[in-house]
């Protein structure tokens, strides 16, 4: 595995959350252009891993490198400017802002982001509702908006936390299409996902997490062979 291909590399990441020790030394790599999925039971630290990479959890030790540069000492509001975007599990749509204001909220980080016209092409619903307040959107629309506003900002790496949670199959399918579009444009994605079927369609590799650690890593091609064992492990 050559270092040059690594966009994100995490070594020995520990994090403390609400008084508890949540991550016990997570190691993972995400290569340029890859889509990598973190799987694991509830509460093993998948979301915490994303939040710790992003710097939202301040109490953390270890090493997080992005494009070869250390992120641990970068203040929270500078991290996005290095080229990382975060779509939180709860989506984080601002209720008092209109759809359009939500879309334009993340500042442009770099060139090469998806233009607003393309965004509206990809997400016709958002165009229709661009003057509505964020609070009026359906769950699916909120998720689309949460992803769209990050895509517009031109980040290189997208951290995506359970984008399909609680959404109708049609919408899940739509999100899958969007992720494939994103991938085709060369964007890198680190995904947390419970929905196997969905993850299998978009991911190149999987990391399996347990008790605050990455315990296994395998390519999507091995997913089928491991399915039975994983189902047992995840208690599906």
């Amino acid at each position, binding site marked *: 595995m050559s270092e040059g291909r690594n966009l994100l590399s995490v070594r020995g990441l520990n994090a403390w959350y609400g008084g508890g020790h949540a991550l016990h030394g997570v190691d993972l790599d995400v290569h340029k252009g890859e889509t990598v999925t973190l799987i694991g039971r509830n509460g093993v630290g998948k979301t915490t891993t994303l939040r710790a990479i992003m710097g939202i959890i301040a109490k953390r030790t270890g090493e997080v490198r992005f494009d070869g540069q250390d992120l641990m000492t970068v203040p929270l*509001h500078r991290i*996005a400017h290095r080229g990382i975007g975060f779509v*939180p599990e709860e989506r984080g749509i601002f209720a008092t*802002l209109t759809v359009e204001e939500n879309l334009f909220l993340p500042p442009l980080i770099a060139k090469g982001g998806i233009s607003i016209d393309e965004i509206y092409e990809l997400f016709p619903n958002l165009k229709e509702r661009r003057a509505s307040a964020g609070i009026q959107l359906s769950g699916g629309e909120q998720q689309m908006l949460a992803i769209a506003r990050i895509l517009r*900002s031109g980040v290189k790496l997208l951290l995506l936390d359970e984008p399909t949670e609680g959404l109708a199959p049609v919408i899940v399918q739509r999100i899958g299409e969007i992720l494939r579009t994103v991938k085709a444009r060369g964007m890198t994605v680190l995904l947390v996902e419970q929905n196997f079927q969905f993850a299998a369609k978009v991911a190149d590799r999987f990391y399996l997490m347990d008790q605050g650690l990455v315990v296994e890593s395998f390519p999507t091609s091995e997913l089928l062979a491991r399915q039975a064992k994983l189902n047992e492990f995840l208690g599906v």
Partner: protein
Amino acid sequence: MVLIFGIPLQALLGQLLVGLINGSFYAMLSLGLAVIFGLLRIINFAHGALYMLGAFVGYLLLVYFSIGFWPSLILAPLAVGLFGIIIERVALSRLYDLDHLYGLLFTFGLALVIEGTFRYYFGASGQPYAMPALLSSGTNLGFMFLPNYRVFIVVASLVVCIATWFLIEKTRLGAYLRAATENPTLVRVFGINVPLLLTVTYGLGAALAGLAGILAAPIYQVSPLMGTNIVIVVFAVVVVGGMGSIGGAIIMGYMLGIFEGLTKVFYPEASNIVIFVIMAIVLLIRPAGLFGKIT
């Protein structure tokens, strides 16, 4: 003589104008309070002191540097805003993670210090501040005399309130502010410097108070105590309007000012307390305020 409810029309219109003037100051001050509270979650007890500071900056510029009203209209809010920025950086920024009541207590102490200091150097009595020559005359409307400066205050405060409302509701910076009010962490994650935003917001709120102060200087006297009682009235205004609403703060400011003016005509004894009475009634009927949601 025209009488309305047994009151001469002139007296009624006169008090209406006085009420509108007071309302202009209430609106500007409660707007600043609401802007600061929205993002910092701090009730700025020092708002009255900052208002007084604005008037005194104008007064001192005139006395020591012969700088008149018009330049002071820019310089006083700038100076007070800068002072606010320093206060936020040095002190308030250390209180954000604590119970919000500490912010109230700190700014209360700050108000005592500012007012105490000015009282120490200038005494409790007011200093006159000349009206700008351009506006010192008035217009005779036939049924009443309309001093130009008072019209200027109402127009200026309307312009300031609408501009601030526009800034917050319709611009990119305003969207940042509103988003940071909802979820400051996520706004930081998106790459926006929220601590800087907080500093700027307090500076803006302070500058608004300073602007109200310099506008007030020519009609009220410049006195160290001019801000002490008005800040409590303004608190009542924002309780009535509902703290979360910028528009509510502005509208209630003008309305309650006018109400107070009318009370002076019909029942002068109650004019001091009418705003508090209205606050009590609103609390009974709509505890969240007329434009607010319970938070």
